[in-house]
Structure formats: structure tokens, C-alpha cells
């Protein structure tokens, strides 16, 4: 019965293949060109501004491989369809459907190949069985061996990723507290790498060594309290050490004495969709009050200018901070939750509407020094939004520049104030109005 079904399936499949071939002829033709030019394709794809290739690319690139038809020398038919289907017409290029069909066809071919290999294998197994050489455990051994091969590949892959991607991702922290975090990060990494490797070696070598054999029975070993106690206590002890270490580091970062809080440079950051506004205190060193209800098109920050300490507040285009000086950031949000995240500084705290969060830290490396270290003259620190906040979440950034104290003062003196002349006039008018109102009220009384 199974055979019959398979035959029916095959004929159906063959029919489908034939129909597909007929429909997909043009796609195949262009496909052949692409195959012929495959080396060239890579080159053109890499070349930055080949306008012809770009035009072809934008209109006809199929679903999975943008470079397939990108060859400048591809068949004239492709080129003409591209020319006939400009994007403005909102019509989908017929080539797109052909390409889809082509990929479906490729998928079907892969499925057929897998099915054929499967059939060949089962016939092979059947002949073995007929000739009496069938080993029922052969496949079991094969899978065990594959698991062992996987182990080696896994270890190599882990090594590769640590060596290559690890090097890409790791930059020492540029802040004081960041050094503690880095130390803990490295210790944790060493511990978990040892455990990861050991556990995988045990898991997969045991799988290989103790694969089923015809004449073996497993060892009936339901429990061993001593060893179970051991592997409860050892992780518990290791974790306790990590917890204590982490707890004190965390406290030292978040629990800052009152006098240090006051002596630090205060900077306020207001997040909104999709930008950050930076407010420096003026000469008085105090950031003025903000009341979201006072937000107007001119005063989009919502600063309360009744508070005179707000009059000299300075608007920073970028976050510029002096090196080796403690900075206390006040993080706020105007609309939804954002996150104030500076990876190089090991700094992150959410910007939550309705409450102010704080993060205090001391940068230890200037941008210039970091550029030297990274050997990249264009390197910059960035503050980026790390909490999903809408369609431009991926591009909500502010450059962070760490400079010397003198450079910082010079930069600050060039920045504009929030309390612009327009705002001053508006404020004066409002004040007049309120004064008049109170006078009228007083006279009425």
C-alpha cells in the first residue's frame, strides 16, 4: 500500500516539476547567465557605485539573493524588463514572480533530492538485510559518531567565536566603575566557559561511548546521594561568590554617598521620540525645574522659567563631559520609555516618563585617547536608546565626547541657552498677564 502511495506521489510530483519547468523557463535562462557570471556578480556587488548594476539590483533582485541578477552583463531580456518596470508605476515586475517560481522550483528539487537519497538508502538497507549483513545498530553507531563529530565542531566553533567575534566585541570600559564590571565579566566568562566545555565534553562523549551495543546492558544506578550533594553544593558555593561579588559592585555603582552626589557635575537628559535633549546647568550649577504641562512649541522641553535657576541652563548639542570628573546624569523621558545606554561606559538606565533616574560615573578615557587605542581616527562614543520606542528606535543616538577639563569649559561657553530671547519675551508677557490678573482680582475684591 505504501508503495502505491509513493508511486502516486511520484507521478504527481513529476507533473508538478514539468509544469514548473515550463513556467520557469525565462527565470532559468536568466539564472544560467547568473551562474556563468557568478564571479563577476560578486565583484559588481562589492563595487560601490556601478549605476547600471544598482538599477538592475533595485528593481529585479529576487527574494533571497540580492546579487543574483546584479551582473551588468546579464541577459538583455532581464535588462529590458527592468527598464519597462520603473518603481513609480506601483506595478510589480513580472520577473519577481518568475524569481519566486524559480526559488520554489529549487526548493522542490532539493526536496526531491532528499527523497531520492532516502529511497536509495532504504534500498541499500534492504539489500543488506537480504544478504544477511544487516546490522540493526549501524545507524545508532552512526548517530553517536555524528554527535562526537559535533562535539569537536562545537568546541572549534566556540574557540573561533571567542577569538574572532570576541575580539570584535570586547573593548575595555572607559569609566571607573566599568573596570569593576569588566573584571567581574571576565571572571564569569572564565567560569562559564569551563563549565560549558566540560559539560559538552561529558554529554557528548558519554553519548558516544555508551551507545547501544548488542551484548551490553546499562548499569542500574538510580542515585548516589553523595555525588548529588556534591554537585548541589559546588554550584551553590560558586554562585554565592559571584553573588557577593556582584552585589557589592552593584551597590558601589548605585549607592553613591550624598556629598559625592552633590559635588558631581549635573547633566539632565530628556528622551523623546526619537531624539535626546541635553541640559547643562549654567553658572549656578543647578538645573532648573521642569514641568511637562508647560510644554509649548517654543519651550518643547517644558522648562519652568519661574524657577530662576533655569534661566542660565545650557543646551548641549552633544554630550560633552570632562575626563576624570564624576558626572551625575538625570535621565527623564518626555513621552514613552527610552533607555540611556553608553556601551563603552558600561552605563545604562531607563528614561521613564513621570520619574527621574540617575546614573553617576567617572569617565577615564578621552575620545582622543580612545581613538588612539582603537587605532581608528573616526571612533566615537555613542549614547543610544536601548528600549523599544517606535519606528526610529534604531537611530536614536547622541554622540558622547570626553575631553579635558579646559576643552570642556571652552565648549560649554559656546553653547546656546534654553532661555532664548523669544522665550524671554513670551515669559515676560505671561508674567505681565498674571500680574494684571492679580491686580484686577485685587481691585475687584
Amino acid at each position, binding site marked *: 500500500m505504501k508503495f502505491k502511495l509513493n508511486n502516486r506521489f511520484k507521478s504527481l510530483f513529476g507533473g508538478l516539476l514539468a509544469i514548473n519547468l515550463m513556467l520557469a523557463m525565462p527565470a532559468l535562462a536568466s539564472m544560467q547567465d547568473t551562474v556563468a557570471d557568478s564571479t563577476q556578480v560578486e565583484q559588481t556587488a562589492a563595487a560601490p557605485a556601478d549605476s547600471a548594476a544598482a538599477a538592475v539590483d533595485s528593481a529585479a533582485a529576487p527574494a533571497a539573493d540580492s546579487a543574483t541578477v546584479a551582473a551588468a552583463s546579464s541577459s538583455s531580456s532581464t535588462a529590458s524588463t527592468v527598464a519597462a518596470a520603473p518603481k513609480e508605476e506601483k506595478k510589480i515586475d513580472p520577473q519577481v514572480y518568475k524569481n519566486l517560481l524559480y526559488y520554489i522550483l529549487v526548493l522542490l528539487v532539493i*526536496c526531491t533530492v532528499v527523497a531520492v537519497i532516502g529511497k536509495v538508502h532504504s534500498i541499500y538497507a534492504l539489500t543488506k538485510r537480504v544478504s544477511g549483513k544487516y546490522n540493526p545498530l549501524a545507524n545508532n553507531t552512526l548517530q553517536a559518531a555524528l554527535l562526537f563529530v559535533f562535539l569537536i565542531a562545537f568546541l572549534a566553533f566556540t574557540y573561533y567565536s571567542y577569538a574572532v567575534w570576541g575580539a570584535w566585541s570586547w573593548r575595555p570600559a572607559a569609566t571607573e566603575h566599568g573596570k569593576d564590571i569588566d573584571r567581574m565579566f571576565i571572571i564569569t566568562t572564565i567560569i562559564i566557559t569551563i*563549565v560549558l566545555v566540560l559539560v559538552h565534553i561529558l554529554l557528548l562523549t558519554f553519548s558516544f561511548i555508551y551507545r547501544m551495543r548488542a551484548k551490553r546492558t546499562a548499569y542500574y544506578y538510580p542515585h548516589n546521594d553523595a555525588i548529588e550533594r556534591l554537585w548541589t553544593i559546588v554550584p551553590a558555593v560558586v554562585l554565592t561568590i559571584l553573588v557577593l561579588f556582584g552585589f557589592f559592585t552593584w551597590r558601589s555603582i548605585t549607592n553613591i554617598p550624598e556629598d559625592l552626589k552633590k559635588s558631581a557635575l549635573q547633566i539632565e537628559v530628556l528622551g523623546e521620540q526619537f531624539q535626546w535633549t541635553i541640559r547643562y546647568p549654567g553658572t549656578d550649577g543647578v538645573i532648573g525645574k521642569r514641568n511637562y504641562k508647560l510644554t509649548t512649541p517654543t519651550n518643547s522641553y517644558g522648562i519652568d522659567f519661574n524657577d530662576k535657576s533655569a534661566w542660565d541652563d545650557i543646551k548641549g548639542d552633544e554630550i560633552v563631559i570632562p575626563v576624570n570628573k564624576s558626572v551625575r546624569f538625570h535621565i527623564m523621558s518626555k*513621552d514613552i520609555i527610552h533607555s540611556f545606554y553608553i556601551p563603552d561606559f558600561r552605563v545604562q538606565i531607563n528614561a521613564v516618563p513621570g520619574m527621574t533616574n540617575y546614573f553617576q560615573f567617572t569617565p577615564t578615557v578621552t575620545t582622543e585617547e580612545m581613538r588612539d587605542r582603537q587605532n581608528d581616527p573616526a571612533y566615537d562614543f555613542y549614547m543610544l536608546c536601548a528600549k523599544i520606542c517606535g519606528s526610529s528606535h534604531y537611530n536614536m543616538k547622541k554622540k558622547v565626547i570626553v575631553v579635558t577639563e579646559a576643552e570642556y569649559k571652552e565648549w560649554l561657553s559656546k553653547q546656546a541657552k534654553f532661555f532664548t530671547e523669544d522665550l524671554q519675551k513670551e515669559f515676560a508677557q505671561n508674567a505681565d498677564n498674571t500680574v494684571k490678573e492679580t491686580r484686577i482680582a485685587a481691585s475687584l475684591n
Partner: protein
Amino acid sequence: MSTTVISHDAAHHGHDHHHETFLTKYVFSQDHKMIAKQFLITGIVMAVFAMLLSILFRIQLAWPDAEFPILEVFLGKWAEGGRIRPDFFLSLVTIHGTMMVFFVLTAGLSGTFSNLLIPYQLGARDMASPLMNMLSYWFFFTACVIMVASFFVESGPASAGWTIYPPLSAVPTAIPGSGLGMTLWLISMALFIASQVLGGVNYISTVLNMRTKGMELWKMPLTIWAFFLTAIVGLLSFPVLVSAVVLLFFDRSVGTSFYLSDLVVGGTILPNEGGSPILFQHLFWFLGHPEVYIVVMPALGLTSEVISTNSRKPIFGYHAMVYSLVGITVLSFIVWGHHMFVTGMSPFLGGVFMITTLIIAVPSAVKAFNYIATLWRGNIRFTPAMMFAIGMVSFFVSGGLTGLYLGNAALDINLHDTYFVVAHFHLVMGSASIFGMLSGVYHWYPKMFGRMMDERLGYFHFWLTFIGAYLVFFPMHFMGIDGVPRRYYAFTEFPFMEKWVSVNILVTWAAIVSAVGQIAFLWNFFASIWCGKRAPQNPWNSNTLEWTTPVEHIHGNWPGEIPSVYRWPYDYSKPGHDADFIPQTVPHSQTMSSNLIHDWEGNEYGIAAQRVYDKEHNRETEG
């Protein structure tokens, strides 16, 4: 297994349901086996849907500057000019996460296997309340339909992330997805929670009340322990999510201010005052964290059973396994704050949550070590189910270990909301649970459909998925360490991220290949329903009760009386017995040659008889 002996009970059942129609048998079925199949197939459909969504956003991440006109054919305005729009990208990640976590790994996993195995392995004719069981499925199904329907809403599906933090999810002007799409999300989730509560009550009452004779709690298979504790966790935590969802619904539709305050969105000052967005996060994660254990504990239970059966060896440290599950259950309720270290929650509270979080690693470590000890000196049979179980342990360890970074508040500062988190939870809860689930599907398929799945396709499926999953998720750790936040539409706006685009291409190809590999599973699964090899009654030589039922499903599971249970489920390769397994239904009096003294549990007659037998046969049984 004589079918001629029909108990009064079974005969009675037979009469009741003589006139079974298509509708009562396949659609509004109250039979636990059929409901399990319904849950499984709905779960698979949802998994495929959510997987396709993930492929869409992976394509965007790998080729951020390329255009794929074919996407416009299918997605229309969401992919104008062949490029996925940023807000639709966020919808994709949101619905992918929601569907995978709730519909696939919660309902698809514990819905399927709790329904299938609780009555079967405990020796019950059905669930405590078959009607509630049916309702549980239909609430779930409706939730799925509503969630999928949100793709056909003009403003698009919910797009505030699967954690739907307000105010983003509460203010429609902040993002289009927070319009009608979000309302549908909330309705869908409320129905889903109703489904989970109905199911959970049922599982707990069945486990507590309907065990067969001799099935003490300490003779239950670890699968049942896992489902039982999962149901408790779900029952205690899901209602809290209801409250979070209902309050958010009020904030959105009625104008209350539970979560909203001090908002100026798009230049408009909103009237809401006095609420706190942090309140929502507390409520959400009070469910959200137990939820990951709701997802992973059933997978651990299934894996325990599969590893023990296929190693032909008792699970190592049965009691330790149960206690570690209990430990995880209890601790899972007091760790939710580790999702909120950098939200501005009191830093001291953060320190406390950090301590509880790292404690929960201990029972998890015990489980991993016990699995390895079970393999040690086993006689391992690599069925596809066993391969997936081994893969599950591997993922559970690889993903679990990185929890030591994220649970540590100081390290979390730099890793919070980055790709490191994505890598961590996709390995430890995503891949591990999916592998546990697939392991269960391959293992219990003969019980569900009475036929065998094709083994070779199973191996093919395993290797593609196993290698693919590692290639997809392992590189993400490094992006996170570099400081790439999650849910970024493109890595093109920051100079330091550009190097990762090449890695993204690798990741996307790995994802596409393993997604295509799932065709092997789907073909295998659906084709084998009709043309798989017919299954024998006990294909894996397993000890548990479900394999004593006939292959053809009958109402009430056992044709005669429900068998009694005499021993624990893990008597594999017991020395002295001729076969390498002894089913739970075999009394000790029939296995004198393999009994140990403590097997008699203080039964004096039994011990005396054993002593006599041992003397006659020169056996030593102390130990």
C-alpha cells in the same frame, strides 16, 4: 491485555457515546487524546507562522539596504518598494515573540503533553473535567485566530514588543501598532489566559485525584511532576497578567491612568496623571518570569522520560529531579525583578532580586548534571526523540550559563536589552523548549496517531535544526557584548555596528536553512498520520502506563479495568531481570529475581519471601 473483560465503567462509557458524529469526535471533542492532538496541530501551525515572521525580519537585518520586491507582493504597504517598514519590523518581532512564547511553547507544549500524558501515565480514563478541557482548547484557538487577524487591521498588529510596555503600547499616537492591533492583542491574551487557567485547574485536579491504584506521588513519572508543577505555576501567575492586561485596556480605552503620567506625545500634553509605567512591568514580569519556567519545565519533564527510556537506565537522582523542579517552582515567583534592574527600581531591591535569581541556577545545574549521570554507563539508543533530548540538554546548559551574567545586576547594566539577552533566552527557553517539545512529539507520536514517524527524516530534521539553532543564536552573544540593542531595525546607523552585518548574513542564512529543514518535520508529521508504519503497542520498551493501552484509541483509554501500579517508572536494566525494562504494572511478586529489599517498602511478607527466594538462589540484595 484481553479485550473481552469489559468493566462496568468502560461499558457504560461505550453506550454513552455510541452516536459519535464528526463534530463531537474531531471538533468539539472532550476526549483528552483528541484535545492533545488539537493543541499540538494548532501549536505547530502557530510555530510555522511565527517562524515565517522571524525569517522576514532576519532578511531585513541581513540585507538592510537591499530591496526584495517579492515582499511587496505578499505584504503590500508593509513592505513598500520591497523593504519592510520599521514599524512593521517591530510588529514582526512582537508577534513572533508573543506567538512563540504563549501559543507554541505554553499551549502547544504543555497543552499537548499535559492532556495526552496526564490521564495516560496516571491511569485515568480522562481528565477531571473533559468539558473544561474542551473549553480550554477553544479559548486558545480563538486567541490564535484573533492574534492572526490583527495582521489584517489597517494600522497593523501590536508592535510594542512582546512585553508590551506602556506607554508605548498605551498611546496609539506613539506607534501605529498601538491602535486596534494592540486592542486585539489584549483581547487575544485575555482569552489565552482563560484557556490556561481552565487547563491548569484541570491538570492539577486530575493529578491529585485521579491516579490509579498504587500510583503514589513518588511513583509518578517525572513528566507528570513537571506538568503538575507547571500547572501550579501557571495558575498562580497567569491571573496577575490578566490584571495587567485589563488595567492596560482601561488606560487605552476608558481613559484611566494606571500606567500613564507626565506624557507629551508628539507635542500634545496628555491628561493622564499619577500612574506608573513601572507598575506594569512589575505585574507583567510577575507572570513573565514564571512563564519561562512554564515553558521550560514541561520540556525538562519530557526530556527526563526520553533520556531515561533510551539510555535503558533509571533517571539519575529521581528525588533530586523532583525537588529541583519544586525548587524552581517556588523560586520562580521571587525573581521577576531581574528583568528590571535598570528601570529605576530601587537599587537595593535589585540587589535582593539578584541573589534570588542566582539561587535558581542551583536546581537547574542539578538537573543538567543528573541528565549527564543518566547517560553514564547507559546503553543508549539514539532514536530521533533521544537526539532531540540530548540537544535540549545542550541548549539548556549553553543558554542557562549566560544567565549568570544577566542575573548579576552589575553585569546586566551593560547587557540589558541587547542581543546578549536575545541569545540567552532563545537558547535556554526557545531552543531548549522547542527541542523538548519535538523530542516529545517523536517519542509519543506512536501513542497519538498509532503510527511511527520516519526515522531518517527525523535525524535529518534534528541535525539541520540543532546546528542551525547554534549558528543563529551563538553569534548574538557577541553582538550584545559589543552593545547592539535588540529590536533594532538596521545596524547601519552606528559605525561600531556595521561589522555585525556580515555576521547577520550568516545568521540569516542559518535561519533560512533550518526553517526549510522544518519541511522535513512537517512532511514527516502529516504524512505519517496516514502512511506511517503501524506502531506496536510499546515501541520503545517503555515502563510507563500509556504503553499498556491499545494502539487504537478507545474512549476511556483501557478496554478493561485500569491497571494498578506497583513500582516506580524507571526500572530499566534492573540486574536479575531478563528484559531490560519492567513496566509499572508488573508486581514485585513476579520479579523475585531482580527485587531489592527496599523495593518492598517495608512489606514484611514480601521481605520474608524475598529473603527465602534469595537464599534459594544465592542472591545478594542488600543495597
